[in-house]
């Protein structure tokens, strides 16, 4: 379960403050596949970063009792001068995961070949994406945060990745951020709509999509 307690978050922009969340309290079940709908700029990605713990709310707090992933598709957590293998070792240590198991899994999954022992700054963005995706699978999170499925790259849709994605959906909870109702409908059973600083949870995904489309 992830519980938001009186969470507020806003950003200062050139045109004054933009409110992302305005005093929101909510319980998110971590055994569901939740689709987050919201218009561009509503703060979906910020919400994801706050749930992952990367970013702090302005006030209130977020409680997590599941092992929550970093936002998938995010590849900025690697040290560019270290090799893939060295980065995996570091992240395994931080998460208290078995270094050998993680290394073996990712090496097999990401198919980086000799690049596995080369610095990340020599990688193409596709290679970085494969590495990050493989690593997040190896970590066996209980709740996966996914920012815009398509933006993660085409490797999602290769057979092996699709198979792994199905496994995640069987074994773990998901929270997918998207502005595409089609994506959300395909992968999610529960809906969460971010609008005007408020979050509304819908048990049925179609209700969430109706509510979201109603606004437009």
């Amino acid at each position, binding site marked *: 379960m992830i519980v938001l307690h009186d969470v507020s978050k806003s950003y200062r922009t050139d045109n004054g403050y933009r409110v992302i969340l305005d005093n929101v309290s909510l319980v998110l079940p971590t055994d569901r596949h939740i689709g987050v709908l919201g218009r561009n700029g509503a703060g979906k990605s910020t919400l994801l970063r706050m749930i*992952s713990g*990367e970013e702090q709310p302005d006030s209130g707090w977020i409680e997590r009792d599941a092992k929550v992933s*970093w936002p998938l598709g995010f590849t900025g957590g690697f040290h560019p001068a270290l090799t893939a293998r060295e980065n995996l070792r570091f992240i395994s240590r931080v998460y208290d995961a078995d270094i050998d198991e993680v290394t073996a899994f990712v090496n097999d999954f990401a198919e980086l070949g000799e690049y596995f022992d080369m610095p990340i700054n020599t990688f193409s963005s596709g290679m970085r994406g494969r590495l990050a995706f493989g690593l997040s699978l190896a970590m066996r999170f209980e709740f996966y945060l996914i920012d815009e499925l398509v933006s993660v790259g085409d490797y999602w849709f290769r057979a092996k990745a699709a198979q792994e994605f199905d496994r995640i959906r069987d074994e773990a909870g998901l929270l997918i951020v998207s502005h595409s109702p089609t994506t959300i409908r395909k992968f999610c059973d529960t809906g969460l709509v971010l609008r005007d600083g408020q979050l509304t949870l819908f048990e049925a995904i179609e209700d969430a999509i109706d509510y979201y489309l109603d606004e437009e």
Partner: protein
Amino acid sequence: MLDLAVKGLSVQGRVISAVILREIRTRFGMYHLGYLWAVLVPLMFVISLTVFFAFLGKRSAYGAPIELLLFSGMMAWLCFIDTQGHVSRAFQTNRQLLVYPMVTVVDIVIARSALEFGTKLAATAILAIIFYAAGIAMTLDDPLAVAVSMGAMVYFGATFGHIVGCALVVAPSIGFGVNAVRRLLFFTSGVLFALVHVPEQWRHYLLLNPLAHLIDLARGGWITGYSAPYADIDYVISWAIGMGATAAIMELAVRRRRGGAMR
């Protein structure tokens, strides 16, 4: 409650050691001279200043060779200044670590400071052996006092570095001011001279700098027969508490603007 505290500490220990291992690899592993710099920088300093003082006809201070005066002061000073630099820079270079929610700013500061302390202790030991082998009359009267003074210099470097790192978030232009403060601290710390040779009325001002007390403490540890009369530990502790509190307040003030987890 106790369980949670123990669990929290073990996570923190795991994270700090992982960051240290990563820093060892990234900081020293990728430049050709690697760790050699940690020894070469103070070695060049001591040799060049020794030659300079020889021209002035100065060969000893506190009854010890001038090399020992310079070496003892410089190693303590480097503990401060290098820790400050590494900690301040961490706010840019280690930002990406904060995506992992269990990694906090405080862990990064502790990891970098611990690595700096270990590196400086090792470099000090190697240099002491080099000077001894070169026939310089080295003494080591109180190793504990030397280690404590160097550790305290690392602490002041870490807290000052943390304050600077936070301040840079709010006002990126303060870099010049920071450099001025670093220079002022260096010239008043006594790295380049023995406090006993400074006239009483001036010495009073130099001793406002807590680092001058710690460098005197380090020299008392090295030099047989010198008891570090200018090291006022209570004064240093007051500064240490003040710096720690300031760093904590600054951290709380800027953490939301900077982003990143902090517990």
